[in-house]
């Protein structure tokens, strides 16, 4: 049943009763005084369209407080009473969990738990998939008997698996000839001499550092035992090389937000750089032929986490569970699919996507029609194909997950040296 037909049926069903009743009918708690739910997170998921839709669907008040990754993480870990829900990436889970800022989530209250795929449950979407280095989400999801986080399944989880994606780098095909998925495209391109002065990296050590590590490895400049957990000496060697490159003018900039990354590429400041999916989508929507590479070395994977504050209880906790359930109810998954993100229970979102959209975003098929983004602009032209192929194919090629390494503090120091050199 496609989206249109569903809407139609819903409209027919509503015809006999009041609109308010229709909206509130499925949610019992909504009949009471509206609850204000405070959500702390980043711009990736704290989008106004989602807020409006959720408030409309749930009959609750939602307060979104988006911020920078480090800032929100610090706030969340130190002041759990300042939020109800926390939305960020899996690499923040260890900190939050250890600080006791979040409480375990009861799997039984997650309505669509059974629909959630194996990526987070077992770490492998397909049988022959690579697990990838670093903090793979399945290693952090389950609350173990000893209150630690591990891969063994229990009744509780540390976060709700929902938005996730694989990232790599983007490049302007007007300047750099388009490569082939998994064959020619390589992280090594980021360090290619011929792009000197036109390269940018995301200014976040838990992310950008892995881009650079993969690039160094791909170039054959360094080899790491575990690219997801670099040792101090490895960091020293790695940054020696990088600082030399930086001083040679190889790196043009270090972007801190998706709009900034778009601006870099659009203005011609860069031709190749670390990218997030929405940035690529936006550039394509503006007619800039940015291609999201499918590196033969594999992607850098990341997984969104939705955590429940340890200070949240009662009606607020009920509302928080409903919000979590709403996220997996289909529409939000379809919404973020149009930005290039995946949801942990894709099948439910398929109902809200056209066949063309589904085939393009999840299937990795060429677009049968022009496809619109969340802002209504055409972001995919008919015939275009998503780089890296289907959802399964992409998540079978994760080289490393965004991670907080044991050498995190040291890496911060090295990072500072690097970008300030």
């Amino acid at each position, binding site marked *: 049943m496609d989206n249109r037909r569903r809407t139609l049926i819903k409209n027919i069903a509503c015809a006999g009763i009041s609109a308010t009743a229709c909206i509130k009918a499925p949610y019992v708690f909504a009949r009471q005084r509206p609850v204000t739910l405070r959500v702390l997170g980043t711009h990736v998921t704290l989008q106004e369209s989602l807020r409006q839709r959720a408030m409309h669907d749930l009959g609750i008040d939602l307060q979104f407080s988006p911020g920078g990754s480090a800032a929100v993480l610090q706030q969340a870990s130190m002041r759990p009473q300042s939020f109800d829900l926390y939305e960020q990436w899996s690499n923040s889970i260890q900190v939050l969990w250890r600080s006791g800022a979040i409480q375990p989530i009861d799997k039984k209250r997650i309505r669509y738990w059974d629909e959630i795929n194996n990526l987070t449950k077992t770490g492998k979407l397909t049988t022959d998939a690579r697990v990838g280095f670093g903090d793979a989400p399945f290693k952090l999801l389950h609350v173990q008997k000893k209150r630690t986080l591990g891969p063994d399944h229990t009744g509780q989880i540390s976060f709700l698996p929902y938005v996730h994606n694989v990232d790599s780098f983007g490049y302007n095909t007007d300047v750099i000839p388009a490569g082939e998925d998994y064959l020619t495209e390589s992280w090594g391109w980021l360090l290619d001499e011929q792009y000197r002065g036109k390269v940018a990296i995301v*200014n976040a050590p838990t992310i950008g550092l892995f881009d650079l590590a993969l690039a160094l490895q791909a170039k054959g400049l360094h080899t790491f035992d575990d690219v997801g957990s670099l040792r101090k000496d490895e960091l020293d060697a790695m940054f020696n090389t990088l600082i030399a490159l930086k001083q040679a003018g190889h790196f043009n900039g270090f972007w801190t937000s998706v709009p900034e990354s778009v601006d870099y590429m659009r203005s011609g400041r860069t031709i190749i750089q670390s990218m997030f999916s929405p940035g690529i989508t936006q550039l394509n929507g503006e007619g800039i032929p940015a291609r999201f590479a499918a590196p033969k070395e594999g992607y850098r994977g990341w997984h969104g986490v939705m955590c429940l504050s340890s200070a949240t209880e009662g009606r607020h906790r009920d509302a928080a569970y409903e919000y979590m359930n709403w996220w997996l109810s289909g529409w939000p998954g379809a919404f973020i699919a149009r930005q290039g993100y995946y949801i942990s229970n894709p099948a439910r979102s398929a109902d809200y996507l056209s066949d063309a959209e589904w085939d393009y975003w999840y299937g990795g098929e060429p677009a049968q029609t022009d496809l619109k983004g969340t802002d209504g602009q055409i972001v995919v032209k008919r015939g275009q194909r998503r780089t890296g192929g289907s959802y399964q194919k992409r998540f079978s090629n994760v080289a490393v997950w965004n991670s907080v390494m044991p050498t995190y503090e040291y890496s911060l120091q090295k990072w500072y040296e690097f*970008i300030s050199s």
Partner: protein
Amino acid sequence: MPDWFLLVIRSLRVQVFLVLGVLVGLLIWQGFLARQAQNEYQQSLSQGQQAVLKVNLVRELERDVLDLQRNVLIFKETASPSVVSRFDLIMANIKANLAALTQMVDNNDNEELQRIANMQSHLNDYQVNFSAVVMDRSRRKEVFEDDLLLEMDELFRLLERYQWKTPQQQLTLTEAKFYLSRAKTSAFRYVLSPENQYVEAFQQAISVARQQTSELAWSAELRDTIDHTFEDVENDFFQLTQITRGYLYLVNVVMAGSANEFLYLAKQLNSLETQRLIEANTHIKQGLEKTNRQMLWSSVLSITIAALIALFFGYRVMLPIKRITSVFNKLADDENIDKIPGRSRQDEIGELSRAAAVFHHKNQQTEELLSRAQELNSRQIAMNQELSLAKRKAEQATQSKSMFLANMSHEIRTPMNGIIGLLDLLGNTPLNDEQREFLKKLSLSSQILMSLINDILDFSKIEAGKLHIETIEFSVQSLFDNLLANITTRAREKNLNVHFFVEPTLPSLLNGDPLRINQVLLNLCTNAIKFTRNGAIDIRLEHQPIPDTEHGVQIRVDVTDTGIGMNETQLATIFDSFTQADGSTSRTYGGTGLGLAIVKNLTELMGGGVAVTSTPNVGSTFSVTFSLSRPDKSPAVLQWKPTDKKTLWYFCKQPDALLDTRYLDALPVEVKQFPQAELGNRCEDIDERDEVIIDIQDLEQHLALKAQIETLQQRSIHFLFVTDTQPLNLGQLLAKKWHTAVLSHPFTPNQLVQALDRNLQTDSSAELAIIERPSKQLEGHVLLVEDNAINQLVAGQMLTRLGLTFDVAEDGQQAVTKIVNSPHYSIVLMDIQMPNMDGYQATRMIRERGFPDLLICGLSANAMQEDKDKALAAGMNDYLTKPIKLVQLEALLSKYLPQSPPVETS
């Protein structure tokens, strides 16, 4: 292209304007270029200056941001408050510089504005994050120094206080202390160098320390305290790491990123501005070169265009104009032209050429016209000569005609004079009735003939312009008397009533020609009588002053008859000469047809005119006017000064009163008017001093009023009668019966006055004598100078009848001789035309011989004024026109000669 456009563009004027426009355009263009170049130069210059300023600013910004980073690093290590204030100072400076930079950036330079906005945004982030760092740094200090270390010291104190009882306990206590110390050391090391290994070392050490401690035997209370304290230590250390990680992340990643981005942007700005500076300089250089080039080209273009225009005008205008000018010169010099250049051109030159062609053509035409005019002129001269010859001939002919007329007048009048004179004399001889009747008719015929001759003579004179109108003072009364005397007789013959009315205020004396006025009135009245079978003739005379003159008087006389009248056609030609109402008129009524023509001419000569209205078989009214003047003192024609009369009673039959009421109004007494039948009733009212006037129409009326009239008579009341012209004998009858005055129509105002004064002589019975009898006898001796024997006889007879003696001289010569020899003549009657010596000559001679006072009267058949003037000029005293009539002669002589007692003749 449309035709009009071609026409317009071909016009030289338009071309000149176009060319001028092009030149002006070039000038404006050059001016524009110069101005633009200057503007560009100034703009580039100011841009360059701006760029220098901006570059300096940006450099300062870069320096300051680097300084900021340096201070942040210092703060990270030392947490010194002075660094924070230093940071704020630098930040303020950067912000001011950024604001200054924003001011300097062109508002339209969005890219640069965006760049600065980005810089500002990064700077703000940097500041905000630094605040967080400052806060975290102080919190870390608190957590570490105030919480963690104190808690660990507390644990040490507790362990120190522990009383070990066994060596095992002592060992465990020592180990616990050892690990606690290690943990403390790790914490210090972490604070010094925040690395994960120290975190792990701390956690491991504290974990062991806790384990060892718990194995000791503590009181339940202490054990609780120790457990809690270990928990606090672990938590605080976690917090310490979190805070440290947070501000490290902020400083090392976020703030470093912001600063780097800021510096990147500043560097870009720097290079951009530097580039702009270079560009501005290059632009200035290029602009100057370009301007020079443009000026050069526009100068070359201007000169070329000017040269082309000069050539164009030389070829298109000057040359053709020169050619056309030579053509015009040739035309002006009357040289022959073969060809006119440029005629097919559409511009002004073409027009000039065509004009030259027209000029040429006109020149030829003028020449032709000139020769023709010359020819005509010579012909004209010849004609003029002929004309003057003809004129002279005509004048001579007119002269001859005048001569002829004069001669004829004389020649016809002389024998007629004789005839009439002899008839006159014959009438005085004893004749039987039949002879007398014949004689009467003969006399009448002669007179008609004479008047006919006079008419013709008059007309001829008018025609020849020889008729002169006199202006002498005359009495209107005598004019009226003369007129009425003439027409009454004729009217009586036809039993017609004649009514004569004169406006009472008419001046009694006027200046004019009474003879001609009389002639006109007589003519009209005679005509009226002639064409009226029965009824009445009304003559009314009115006057009015002529505007804008002092003494001018216009006299208007209406003569109305009840005659045959005339139709429109007849009226149209009535005043033409030799025309009567129709051809048959002359047969029925006789006449020459000259009368009205003469009337018309005479009235016009007297400043008036004649008009007629007429209805066939009803009658006609002829109106004539004369412009005359009156003397200074001229009393009104009706002047009555009653002695003691009180009231005037007038009994008449209304509306046919016989006395015009205007006469009554003019009388200075009270007038009471009643019907005749009232006479009886009013008798008693009438006073003896009153005057009574009674209209009597006929005998019957007289009979009816007889008794009343007798009463009046008995009461000695004065009364008089008024009757119409007819019945003729009524007046006589009344006069005879009542011995009172009777006014019979027509009468003059004077007669009315006389009647009122009882002076009126009623002499209705007087008949016209065929030959006038002299009323008086004169005394004197006359010399009659006359060459014609018959005339000698006639004149002699008349003189004799007047009781005068006379001598006769045959011609002028004889007359002079006789006078000189016997100078005792009372008067000399001198014929003008005589053989040997004419009258003029003789008169002059007599005057020369010493007889200046001798009365000499000219006699001539020449009735013209000039003859009379001539006579007076020659020295004559008076002049008499032949044929001589007794009355005229008597009148003349009685002026000069004494009267003797009348002699009654039979």
